[in-house]
């Protein structure tokens, strides 16, 4: 990690901790006030408590061009991406966080789709163009291949996420050690799932100087709960599959209802967030993370779009190709989960739980 980044972080927190005017904005400040020194672990923990609104910047008497140059939202954003790299497993893939972008995301989805198309064509050339009156996905990609491919990648993705988050949890260790309590866990989950710190003073936080809007929060809810519903849809389908009840499922079946509702959230949410972030005050963001944010939003959007199209068009001849493109996009989203914006949710949640166990515990 860059020493310069940590030094800037320490300077910033030293100024903030001597001022404390922002102490009722969000958890960053009460957590800061418990500390007198700001080492790497402290900074990375505080950075993940920050929800990147603009309240503290616009309220700051020391914001640039003041000589102290305090821009907490941006500097904590810089530390946040550094935390993803720091705790990433395998560490050699940490560089991926800065390599992403709309083009890279599209390219990855395209390459994975192409590889899968090529495999399908090689192993089962007839299936791609066959009319599919029942929408039978497994006639295109055999059941075993689908389960093996996604099962294997899932295991890897899950291990990587678990290792990263446990590294973060251990390093942001609190003295004296705290034990996980049900109440602390529940409060942390509530804070994360409701995004209450984006409107904790009773009105929505700022997205620009004197600009207050609830939309960033609502679009995030659309994205997150859309993702969750899609995940639930896939999980229910996996259970059905294990019980021997194979896809495709009827429009009135649970996987399709969950997937459709989630898919709509996952169209509106990421599109809205994309518009929001492009309209945001650049002072609040770390330009190095534009690609990270946008590639994740793009892959979520494309996953949903291709999935919904597949649902509507599954009886057509084009289903085969569409299915493989959808799987390619999902695979691209999937393999980038531990090395993309997705991890912010896990780190945020872990930080909020820690906050509720320590500062508010």
């Amino acid at each position, binding site marked *: 990690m860059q020493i310069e980044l940590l030094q800037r972080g320490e300077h910033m927190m030293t100024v903030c901790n001597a001022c404390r*005017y922002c102490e*009722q*904005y969000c958890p960053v400040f009460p957590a800061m006030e418990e500390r007198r020194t700001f080492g790497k672990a402290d900074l990375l923990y505080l950075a993940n408590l920050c929800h990147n609104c603009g309240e503290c910047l616009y*309220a700051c008497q020391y914001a640039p061009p003041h000589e102290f140059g305090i821009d907490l939202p941006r500097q904590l954003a810089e530390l946040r991406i550094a935390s993803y790299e720091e705790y990433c497993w395998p560490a050699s893939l940490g560089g991926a966080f800065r390599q992403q972008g709309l083009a890279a995301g599209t390219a990855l989805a395209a390459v994975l789709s192409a590889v899968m198309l090529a495999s399908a064509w090689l192993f089962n050339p007839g299936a791609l163009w066959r009319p599919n009156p029942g929408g039978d996905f497994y006639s295109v990609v055999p059941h075993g291949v689908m389960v093996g491919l996604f099962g294997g990648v899932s295991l890897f993705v899950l291990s990587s996420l678990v290792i990263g988050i446990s590294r973060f949890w251990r390093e942001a260790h609190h003295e004296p050690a705290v034990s996980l309590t049900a109440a602390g866990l529940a409060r942390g989950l509530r804070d994360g799932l409701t995004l209450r710190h984006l409107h904790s003073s*009773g009105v929505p936080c700022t997205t620009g100087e004197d600009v207050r809007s609830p939309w960033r929060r609502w679009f995030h809810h659309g994205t997150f709960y859309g993702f969750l519903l899609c995940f639930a849809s896939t999980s229910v389908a996996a259970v059905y599959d294990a019980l021997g009840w194979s896809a495709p499922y009827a429009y009135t079946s649970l996987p399709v209802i969950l997937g459709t509702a989630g898919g709509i959230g996952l169209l509106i949410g990421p599109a809205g967030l994309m518009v929001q972030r492009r309209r945001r005050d650049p002072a609040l963001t770390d330009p190095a993370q534009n690609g990270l944010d946008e590639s994740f939003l793009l892959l979520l959007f494309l996953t949903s779009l291709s999935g919904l199209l597949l649902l509507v068009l599954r009886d057509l001849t084009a289903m085969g190709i569409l299915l493989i493109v959808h799987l390619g996009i999902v695979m691209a989203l999937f393999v980038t989960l531990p090395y993309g914006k997705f991890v912010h949710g896990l780190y945020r949640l872990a930080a909020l739980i820690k906050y509720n166990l320590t500062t508010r515990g």
Partner: protein
Amino acid sequence: MPLTNRLYDVVVIGGGNAGLCAALTAREAGASVVVLECAPRHFRGGNSRHTRNFRSAHASATETLTDSYHEEEFLSDLLRVTGSTDEGLARLVIRGSAECPAWMRRQGVRFQSSLRGTLHLGRTNAFFLGGGKALMNSYYAAAERLGIDVAYDAEVTGLDIAGDGFRAARVEIGGESHDAQGRAVVLAAGGFESNIEWLREAWGDAADNFIIRGTPYNKGRVLRLMLDAGAESVGDPRACHAIAVDARAPKFDGGIVTRLDCVSLGIVVNKHAVRFYDEGEDFWPKRYAIWGGLIARQPDQIAYSIIDAKAVGRFMPSVFPPIAAGSIRELAAALQLPAETLQATVDTFNHAVRPGSFDHAVLDSCSTEGLVPEKTNWAQRIDTPPFWGYPLKPGITFTYLGLKVNERARVIMAGGAPSGNIYAAGEIMAGNILRKGYIAGVGMTIGTVIGRIAGAEAARHAN
């Protein structure tokens, strides 16, 4: 900027708390208003940018204030520090302060909840959520909504006053001269604390060693223009709100983070390594308000707070690191103080410390015996390394010399007659109420209450 060729009902000079309260109130009353703010947009708001709270009388607990704080108690708190005051004006401010929070909320101002907040001022002072810059952002946003014109980088260099009446202010904006004409004017341009030349007239060369905690834009130009035009002044040119700040603070605009409050936990010596005042005299608010003046009267306007390991973690962290050493002699070397004398001062002090039970939360009577000056509370031996030193300088918050006003915020001209259409609010007239000392948040109270009176009166005059 549509300044020239336009006659405003009310011209407000100064875009801090008092100026915006005046502008908003005048606009609410239907007046057309322009605010002339000397600073660029980013540094708008004068010293209000650096404030945090507002002292407010109240009959019972509110969302932001606990318990009650009545007029008489507020007045006695004020008199305890300032000695004398214009009691009529002071009572007007105190009474008016009770209704301010509701008005401020209507302008979009948000307050901290009363449950938390530092400084044990939750009963008497309402804290702005995010501090004074957030407050000023709310006021400027309200001004924009209401259609108040605001000119930034607008330096007033002349006042056109015929007889006792204001006609126009000469304004320099981006190298161009404009005349801001008005039927009435509210002067809310602050004190003269960032005008070092003027401070030198009052303090001599000592002024060169002062740190100015707030805006570099309070040069006192408008105050000077008015005094030259024959307005009556109030207050002593030396009187000001000054505290002890870290000597490494920036010359201007260091704000709150440069203050240091470890004075009571150790000893304070001057550049000759000699103590000069009872460090344990009183609690934070009073201590805070007197140490700036005490250091201003020491040679080279510098002092050093010396503490040991026992004090670490007992005071608000400072933005600058302590200068640390393993022994008093090493500390003296690091602080460039005479080592023999500092060692002797510490030894003598340690020898004079009487046994007691240290409690920083009360006047604990842990004191010295036989010292000049004594330390009357929180006296503990300085004997546990590491030893820490902080260099201290006087940090001027704002000056009290100002324009005399009456209870309608009208400026009193030579001979004692109130001006026809010239009003003043904020630091530029705070000396009517504050003669010396300071109680937290009262500057904002004066600015808000008198600002609103000035705005209402100016609007009434214009119509």
